[in-house]
């Protein structure tokens, strides 16, 4: 087990390095910099600015400086566009918002998704099953940037029960719409996933044995079927995080939440290279780590999978 974990962590390091290097060189080698404005700066000022951001050095040297600063000081450099802010400061500002949004959405998705999936599987090929699966299809096909404005239009504008946008220091009423919108696609995917695996599990021998020894339906489901049926959910954790991260780019933008996703989009639009780099590194680390945890958890939970 320990060997497996060590091997996986060692494997993750080069992956992360390649991602960081690829992003860095892509951004630096592109013509035009963040300081090319409408008006050309006087040459000496431009030289000073470039020196201040190390842009006058050769690219590989910039890369070494960048990596060293991250590893030794946890410093992702100054933001090119948000004056007086370092990238780390911006990320620290945005992280609590994104984290809250992501965790709430994830929890909601897992609870509602597995409930729907299990219900559909227990009533396989009934009206309940079909309606759950049709709703799941809607959730998968309709993107976040359509559901968000629609729900806002109905609940926020016409009915006026929820605020249209804004963070308001994390007031719960402001979080409902973003969380629901962000979790909808995940609810859909999770319910399909859980339904599929529950249908398999309910047909398996150990469930038949449990029934044969006279357990009630509830006991069979709670004690035996659910444990095996919810396993695929664990391995879906990694992709789910990736989905939530992508979704948060749009959700934070639409609802005006000051999270990391919004910084990333703004950074990309303004070509704030250091900010974009910082967010990419953060998200890549997050996704790789969570994938790793999910894989390990899966092996811990499922006795059938031997550690390879």
């Amino acid at each position, binding site marked *: 087990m320990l060997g497996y974990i060590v091997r996986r962590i060692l494997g993750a390091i080069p992956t992360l390095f390649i991602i960081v290097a690829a992003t860095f060189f892509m*951004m630096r080698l592109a013509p035009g910099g963040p300081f090319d404005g409408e008006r050309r700066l006087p040459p000496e000022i431009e030289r000073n600015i470039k020196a201040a951001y190390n842009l006058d050095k050769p690219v590989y040297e910039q890369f070494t400086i960048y990596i060293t600063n991250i590893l030794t000081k946890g410093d992702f450099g100054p933001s090119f566009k948000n004056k007086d802010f370092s990238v780390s400061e911006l990320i620290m500002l945005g992280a609590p918002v994104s984290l809250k949004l992501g965790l709430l959405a994830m929890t909601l998705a897992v609870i509602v998704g597995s409930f729907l999936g299990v219900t559909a599987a227990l009533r396989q090929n009934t009206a309940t099953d079909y309606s759950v699966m049709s709703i799941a299809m809607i959730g998968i096909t309709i993107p976040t940037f359509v559901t968000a404005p629609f729900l806002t239009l109905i609940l926020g504008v016409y009915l006026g029960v929820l605020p249209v946008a804004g963070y308001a220091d994390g007031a719960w009423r402001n979080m409902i719409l973003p969380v629901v919108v962000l979790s909808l696609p995940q609810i859909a995917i999770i319910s399909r996933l859980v339904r599929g695996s529950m249908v398999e599990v309910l047909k398996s021998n150990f469930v038949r044995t449990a029934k044969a020894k006279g357990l009630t339906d509830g006991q069979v489901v709670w004690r035996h079927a659910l444990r095996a049926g919810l396993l695929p959910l664990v391995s879906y954790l990694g992709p789910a995080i990736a989905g939530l991260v992508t979704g948060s780019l749009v959700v934070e933008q639409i609802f005006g939440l000051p999270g990391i996703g919004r910084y990333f989009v703004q950074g*990309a639009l303004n070509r704030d290279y250091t900010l974009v780099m910082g967010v990419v590194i953060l998200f890549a680390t997050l*996704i790789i780590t969570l994938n790793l945890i999910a894989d390990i958890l899966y092996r811990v939970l499922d006795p059938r999978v031997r550690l390879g």
Partner: protein
Amino acid sequence: MALLSADAKMEAMTAAAEVKGRSLWQDARRRLFRNKAAVVSMIILAIIVALALAAPSLSKHAYDAQDYNQVGCPPSWALDVDKANDPDYMDKAPESALCAQGIIASYEAAQADWDLSCGTGAVPIEGTTCGPKPEVDDFKHFLGTDAIGRDLWVRILYGARVSLAVGIVATMVALLIGVLYGATAGYVGGRVDNYMMRFVDIMYALPFIFFVIILMTVTADVPFFKDPFNRFILIFAAIGAVEWLTMARIVRGQTLSIRRKEFVEAAVAAGVSNGAIIRRHIIPNVIGPVIVFVTLTIPAIILAESFLSFLGLGVQEPMTSWGVLISEGANEMETKPWMLVFPALMMAVTLFCFNFIGDGLRDALDPKDR
């Protein structure tokens, strides 16, 4: 002599495989056509594609023409043009009444122009031909206009062209790279396979949209990509170049299992080259799952393009796509909900169709999965 007979044998075998293959396809087609959701989806999708292709001839309005008398107007069927100057209408629904007046104003202006250059007593300008006299209906906007007075229906159709084109071309890019890469990795196997798939794993570790966003960002200043058409091609390439990963995995898995089949062994024994085996034996046999994946990739790519456009990194004005329209609609939804509802509806229907067809194909091609 021995070689010749081996060749003949191979030919006979491929012929046999083809006969069997055809009956498999017939089977699949029958199963597919029995799936009502898939059939209905195919019909709806065909209509949407036909509308998109015929877009220029479907409306009198150009996709980038502004009607200054009708800025941000609701669909024409929601307006009462006959009552345009009725004070009651003005009281009850001032915006609708103004839009109805806008239609009349545009019509009267065009009619005056027509009278001036083509009407009785006018001297026709040399080299120009006069069209038919304008009518009120020519100035109605079936699905309303956007915030700067462009016809929404025409823009949705032009958006469909862009979105569908991106979806299909990017999928083809993904298909080409993915199939070649996956088939090579799976067929060659061993260390090469290991390295090739490790690379895919690394690429997988990032949500692909990040790479596309970075690519769109860094190329924003390259003069070559400032040209709208080149930028458009870049979107194809960028999305397609990341979507091939799953394709490569599927093809590799299939290839690995097919490689051990007797007919491949026979081909190897007969001295057929690796390239020829991949082209003639492996690829035709992995095509089933690939087709299913293709139908599911097209909507995924349409979504990805819309996502980029929504964030402002996709196609540029005056070109449009569903993502751009939805983004514009979302900004104006409080006062002009039609700008959001119609493009969103159009895209949702299209995505549904592709997904139903994909599911139907999967069931049809893989009956043991049902």
